[in-house]
């Protein structure tokens, strides 16, 4: 088949999706990339000429040395993303098996999805009600005779809120993989002399890899860029790179610097995923793509 007729064949299938992605993802991304080299004029509009000033400011490079303010904020975001992802895996991995092997799997899946029926903001506000000084948690602790804890506002609250919000995104794709597991492979591994642990590692774990990889990406990417959760549960005292970007596009009206920060974040996430993909091995990615 020549190239033209091949194109005709695949156009109806990937055409609409490709068009959507070009208009709503590629073009805006390029626009932001373009903006990140512009400057803010005194009225808050964008103006030329092209400059690297925004990137210089983000990395804090100046003649007097390096001011790592924004890099530290970026580091905090990545730390949050990594920790939230790891905790989600620790909780979600066994849970996905529990759901898949349970008699009430439909009910359990419903419970996993149920929070999505409520607005995201309201769910985060609910954590404030739980964590605040005279909140639900302290009322329970008090009635049990414990000292009160002050979790709102705090980094702990931000971490808990992030894990709570994104855990279902890990469980659902992982469950899809666990559900499809061919358990005779485990028997085959036992038959060939693998014990419980090695049987799981060689026969079951590889089968869950596609779901695990998808889940990790679905948790890590939004967790790194979150700003609502840190805004609410940190009460403005926990600054993440998401907050920085939001402020630039909002109150500070410096779209150029915001665009640069967004691009650095994107580069960092992509680099992280690239390293992770290489470590996780080719198998999972192959099956995912």
């Amino acid at each position, binding site marked *: 088949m020549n190239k033209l007729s091949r194109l005709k064949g695949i156009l109806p299938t990937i055409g609409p999706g490709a068009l959507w992605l070009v208009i709503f993802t590629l073009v805006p991304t390029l626009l932001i990339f373009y903006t990140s080299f512009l400057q803010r004029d005194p009225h808050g509009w964008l103006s030329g000429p092209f400059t690297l000033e925004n990137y210089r400011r983000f990395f804090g490079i100046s003649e007097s040395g390096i001011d790592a303010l924004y890099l530290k904020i970026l580091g905090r975001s990545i730390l949050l993303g990594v920790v939230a992802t790891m905790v989600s895996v620790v909780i979600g991995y066994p849970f996905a098996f529990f759901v898949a092997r349970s008699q009430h799997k439909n009910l359990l899946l419903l419970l996993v999805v149920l929070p999505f029926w409520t607005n995201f903001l309201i769910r985060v506000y609910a954590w404030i009600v739980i964590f605040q000084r005279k909140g639900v948690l302290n009322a329970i602790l008090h009635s049990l005779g414990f000292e009160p804890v002050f979790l709102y506002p705090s980094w702990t609250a931000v971490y808990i809120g992030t894990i709570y919000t994104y855990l279902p995104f890990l469980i659902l794709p992982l469950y899809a993989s666990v559900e499809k597991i061919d358990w005779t492979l485990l028997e*085959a591994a036992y*038959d060939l002399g693998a014990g419980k642990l090695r049987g799981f590692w060689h026969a079951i774990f*590889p089968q869950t890899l596609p779901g695990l990889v998808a889940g990790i990406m679905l948790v890590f990417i939004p967790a790194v860029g979150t700003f609502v959760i840190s805004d609410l549960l940190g009460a403005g005292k926990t600054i993440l790179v998401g907050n920085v970007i939001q402020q630039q596009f909002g109150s500070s009206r410096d779209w150029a610097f915001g665009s640069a920060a967004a691009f650095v974040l994107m580069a960092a996430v992509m680099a992280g995923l690239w390293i992770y993909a290489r470590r996780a091995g080719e198998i999972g990615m192959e099956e995912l793509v």
Partner: protein
Amino acid sequence: MEQRRLFKGKRTRTPGGDIIVRLEGVRKRFDNDTSALNGVNLEVRSGEFFSLLGPSGCGKTTLLRILAGFEKPDAGRVEIAGLDMNGVPPYRRPLNMVFQNYALFPHLNVFDNIAFGLRMKRLPDIEVRSRVDWAMELVDILGLEKRKPQELSGGQRQRVALARALVNEPEVLLLDEPLGALDYKLRKQLQVELMNLQEDLGLTFIYVTHDQEEALVMSDRIAVMRDGSIEQLGLPEELYERPSSRFVAQFLGTSNLIPAQAVGEKEVDTAFGRLRISKKLKKGDRVTLSIRPEKVRLSRTASLQYNLVDARVDDIIYTGAENQYLLDINGFELVAYTLNSDIQEPGFEEFDYDEKIVVHLPEENLVVIHE
């Protein structure tokens, strides 16, 4: 043994050495009541090709899974190579299994699949390589090392599954309908290869199948199972020529079953008259006579005084190698096969629709079933 003189096997049967697998009173119940076992006793000798044959749900796969250690028997004793297997997990049992759907690891290539068992034993790489090469050559798949299972044909997957088990040199190889998913030609070819392999290596095979022809072709001994029990156990010729129950007579090949009542020492009455049989019966005994379609003799003229019945040709089925006649004997249906050899001599001739012919039921071919 009398049977062995009577019916010469086409292939040398391996009578087997010492007993390597022994089951005593093995019971297993499942909640959903299927594939249970009701006290199975069984002895398999080393070097034997032993088949478990039966329809689905008869418990043959359950029996195999109990041997492999994937199921625990509710009661009874399992002994392999002289050791009690009670509480021994699958990974410590001196046997390997070829699974029905092969159960190859999809994320490992052919080499790594076959090497799996050796690596679990932590053998050095050099030994792993040489033994995997040996196994691959044995099943004739050299050159496929780097392929993934999903890139192989059904027959190739079957060979990989076999190599993966054989490379561990198990005392006993369990095979769970290994050829079930393959097409007829390939199945025939692999049957012969499996038999040769088993003979060359002197391995003990325990082979589960629901295909009676496969079991007859391949096995040294067969246990026919039904509803969780062994119905009959013996040489393939024994089971075919001397079925002990109506179930075995009908499950292995085709049988004409004729209800009969003994009237004399070696004489019975049937729906179409008096027949002589070769076995002594007590007068009044109600039995079933079984005769194989190919042992029924058809002719145009009567040549003997007894065991002759008049019949009408009701239908003829042409199957290529043989003609299958559906005969009507006063309302009783009898099936007879004759070779399509184009010889028009008495005993070989071909007949027409509605032709009146004489059927000879030779007394030595009428098997008495007490049921």
